[in-house]
């Protein structure tokens, strides 16, 4: 009888434990594989919030961890952004408005998602020469 009570108590104590899950980690990488210097200006509520410079063959990485999950990309708060190639050709990416780019940096679905480890997720957005060409075409059509 005593043994039963002890076993029951032990099971009860152990089952009362709250073990937090391991943190999710998100790695967000914006990579410039084009042959052009890239500057990205971020806008939120019509105000410029930040600026990112991406030299050729360079990348910028953001990391964020949280036990309850991680935000989807992009790794910044913005409702629109302007990408400038070589200080001359510009194109706008929007979060929800209709846009002229085929892959908006502001839309999670336009990022490549990979599971690096069970709790580590990597999201990548790669600028290529095709993106530069799209900006040129857009520029000419204005």
């Amino acid at each position, binding site marked *: 009888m005593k043994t039963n009570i002890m076993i029951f108590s032990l099971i009860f104590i152990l089952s*009362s434990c709250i073990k937090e899950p391991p943190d999710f980690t998100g790695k967000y990488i914006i990579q410039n594989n084009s042959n052009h210097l890239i500057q990205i200006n971020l806008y939120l509520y019509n105000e410029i919030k930040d600026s990112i410079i991406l030299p050729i063959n360079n990348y910028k990485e953001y990391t964020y961890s949280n036990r309850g*999950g991680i935000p989807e990309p992009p790794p910044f708060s913005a409702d629109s952004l302007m990408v400038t190639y070589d200080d001359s050709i510009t194109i706008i990416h929007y979060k929800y408005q209709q846009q002229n780019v085929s892959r908006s940096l502001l839309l999670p679905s336009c990022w490549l998602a*990979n599971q690096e480890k069970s709790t580590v997720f990597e999201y990548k957005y790669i600028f290529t020469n095709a993106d530069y060409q799209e900006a040129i075409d857009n520029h000419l059509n204005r």
Partner: protein
Amino acid sequence: MFVPGSSLWPNIKIWGKDSNGNYRTTDDIFSTTIHELGHASHIELMNAGLIQFGQVSVQIRESWANAIEWYITKIEYNELGFPNYDNPYMNYFMGDHMQWWKKAKLRSDYNLLTDTQKKIINNYTPLFIDLVDDYNQSVNIGSTNYPDDAIHAYTMPRIENLLKHVYGLSSLQSKLKANKPYGVTDNQIDRYLNYYFSL
């Protein structure tokens, strides 16, 4: 220090490194400590009844601990001289405010998630934070994929008072309606909770 009559083992353990072996930042350790103390206070709230607490849904437990973590850590870091700490208007992308959170099935990486991870995401929510804060992520981020919380008149003490009788979303719904502040309607509460009923 061993205190006779208390547990032989510590009730709360906090790790200084994350699951990847990296040292965690001070504010992260602080906020995690508050999160765990939030669980402890929740147990106390249920008359220290572990059996009662054991019947509370994981979503309610973790979302309430998230709210305490957000509320206390923000006060602490604001007082330490960081007025914009964890301000979703400055940065909705990351933070204890969890305004970046959305239900697992609406995530673009849903197919990468295991069933356990989907459950974790759906349990650690801003359910209580959104009843207090004044940031409506559905409007401010501009997508109905995020919770639509037009409500912000509840206070943490008001929620704590009703939490003693809350075990899941349905009891939360009735308790929120029975204890709603001036200006909040039943319709707003229903609309807000519908997002969580359909996880």
